[in-house]
């Protein structure tokens, strides 16, 4: 780590908060997040949910893009296999992201920063748990510099 | 056609006639049998009841020797076949298991040499036409209850024929000019070591097999397993005494019948070594018409 980097890290450590982007499918995970709210289950305010019709809509390129733009973590979440509103979208998600996760880890991205989970519309406690754990993991890792486009 | 030959312990003692008739049959069919030098006991039927790893390792040494010679292994004894096949499958299915076995036997065995039951080779690999061509004396008068027992058909991964109603031996006997009966105890267990260890239980198991074969109209039993034959042949008298029945049912190895049909001298096949007299039925067959000119 260069001196410069150390300095930078010190600066951000003061008021840095992890910023996590969550891609959530409308039918399961988004609804699960709604239920988490209805049940008043509390979790860290570090995530931003982006609604997509199906986890199958999430292009791996979105994930890289998000890291470029400066998020500290990305979660792609959808219906459990077999529960997809569109029958099979999440099976494609599974294939694509099994590869993508490995590729990201391979180029040096910490696996905690890019995660995939199945969270159903009924699994409010799971949503709460996943978000809480992921936030904490990323907080431990610190701000993400990898893949980041510094002009942002 | 060349195979590594694994006779197994029984074939050098209680199952001597199986060894004799196997070699004779193979000779006629032009199957080259290369006896695995210094082969060891496969562990059946005690190894797998004592330790899983040992039960896989004992046959592995024989298989490894055959693999070095680049040959598949022909195994007459059903129990030896089952144990060896188990080893082959364990090695093929798991790299870890393969490594463990190789370390125990201190030899290389990759599962390339396949364990083959002799019955499978003769009844299924060789075409019925080829068998029929070699028949010198049709088995007229033989009404066989083909008895497969357990180990040739179960479990499914090991067996090479249907577990409930196998046909390979029946087809072979028919090719030899004999008749076979349809009966329900083809694959019921003979008791394995039970007749030795818990005789009352074992005898009952045998009695049901004799009853079923008799009721189906058979005049002999045919097997591919020295343990089955020992139980059925050696203990037939005991069973008859215990249940006050009379069966008089000779028990043959399928190779004995094959050899007989191929025109080999009965004594060369060990047919005179049975407890239940087999020579009576054999002589009837030999006396009957049906000698073919082409021998």
């Amino acid at each position, binding site marked *: 780590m260069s001196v410069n980097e150390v300095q930078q890290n010190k600066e951000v450590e003061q008021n840095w908060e992890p910023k996590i982007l969550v891609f959530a499918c409308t039918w399961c995970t988004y609804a699960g997040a709604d239920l988490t709210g209805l049940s008043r289950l509390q979790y860290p305010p570090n995530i931003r949910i982006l609604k997509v019709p199906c986890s199958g809509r999430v292009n791996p390129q979105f994930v890289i893009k998000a890291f470029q733009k400066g998020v500290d973590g990305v979660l792609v979440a959808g219906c459990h296999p077999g529960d997809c509103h569109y029958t099979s979208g999440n099976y494609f998600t599974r294939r694509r992201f099994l590869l993508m996760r490995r590729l990201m880890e391979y180029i040096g991205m910490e696996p905690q920063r890019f995660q995939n989970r199945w969270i159903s519309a009924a699994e409010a406690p799971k949503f709460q748990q996943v978000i809480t754990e992921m936030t904490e993991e990323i907080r431990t890792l610190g701000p993400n510099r990898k893949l980041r486009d510094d002009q942002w | 056609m060349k195979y590594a030959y694994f006779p197994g*312990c*029984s074939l*050098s*003692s*209680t*199952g*001597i006639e199986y060894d004799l008739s196997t070699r004779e049959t193979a000779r006629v069919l032009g199957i080259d049998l290369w006896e695995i030098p*210094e*082969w*060891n*006991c496969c*562990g059946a*039927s*005690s*190894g*797998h*009841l*004592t*330790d*899983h*790893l*040992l039960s896989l*390792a*004992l046959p592995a*040494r024989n298989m490894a020797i055959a693999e070095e010679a680049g040959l598949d292994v022909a195994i007459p004894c059903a129990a030896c076949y089952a144990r060896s096949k188990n080893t082959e499958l364990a090695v093929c299915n798991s790299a870890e298991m393969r490594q*463990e076995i190789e*370390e*125990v*036997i*201190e030899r290389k065995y990759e599962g390339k040499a396949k364990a083959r039951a002799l019955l499978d080779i003769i009844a299924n690999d060789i075409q019925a036409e080829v068998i029929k061509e070699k028949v010198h004396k049709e088995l007229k008068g033989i009404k066989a209850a083909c008895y497969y*027992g*357990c*180990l040739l058909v*179960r*479990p*499914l991964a090991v067996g090479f024929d249907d*577990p409930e109603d196998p046909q390979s031996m029946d087809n072979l006997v028919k090719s030899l000019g004999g008749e076979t009966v349809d009966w329900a105890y083809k*694959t*019921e*267990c003979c*008791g*394995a*070591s*039970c007749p*030795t*260890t*818990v*005789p*009352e*239980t074992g005898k*009952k*198991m045998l009695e*049901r097999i004799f009853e079923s074969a008799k009721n189906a109209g058979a005049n002999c039993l045919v097997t591919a397993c020295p343990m089955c034959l020992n139980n059925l042949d*050696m203990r037939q008298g005991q069973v008859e005494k215990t249940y006050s029945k009379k069966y008089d049912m000779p028990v043959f190895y399928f190779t004995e019948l094959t050899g007989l049909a191929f025109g080999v001298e009965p004594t060369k096949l060990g047919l005179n*070594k049975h*407890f239940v007299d087999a020579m009576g039925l054999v002589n009837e067959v030999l006396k009957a018409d049906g000698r073919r000119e082409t021998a």
Partner: protein
Amino acid sequence: MGNISLTGIRESNKEKLQEVIKESGGVKAEDCYQCGKCSAGCPVVFGMDNTPRQIMRFLQLSMVDEALKSNTIWMCAGCQTCSVRCPKEVDIARVMESLRILAREKGYITEKSINLFHELFLKSVEATGRVYEMGLILGANIIGMKPLKDAEFGLPMITRGKLALMPHKIKDNGEVKKIFENARKRGAKV
């Protein structure tokens, strides 16, 4: 008939059950739905104190000792009929095999003669590389205190050339001895 207390039976038998699962290569007793097809098809069931289905039931309830002490696991001839016919693809024969191995380890040998047979068998293999059937039969009966049990077969066997008076041996049995040694190093109890 007293009550069997099922309270806490799972917790107190957890480790024992794990041993069974491990020994059997992961056979799951809970897959069994107690239809009894195994027991109905079992050729030895009449000689057993519990049907094979009951053994599976013991395991489902974590009653491992009851399973280990049953003579069922010793009577099993290993014919595999149960496993082949099981509609839930439970390898019952493998469970019997595993229970027997564990019962030996723990000293629950309800059928001494059966166990003796197998012990002598393997001893013979280790000593000579092959099984010496004459010795095995005589040994089993002598040590089993039934010296004359199968004596009627001895002489006819010998006259038929079916029992050698001397054991067959392989010339150098070092390799087979090594196999036993190596297996023991890995925990084999033979």
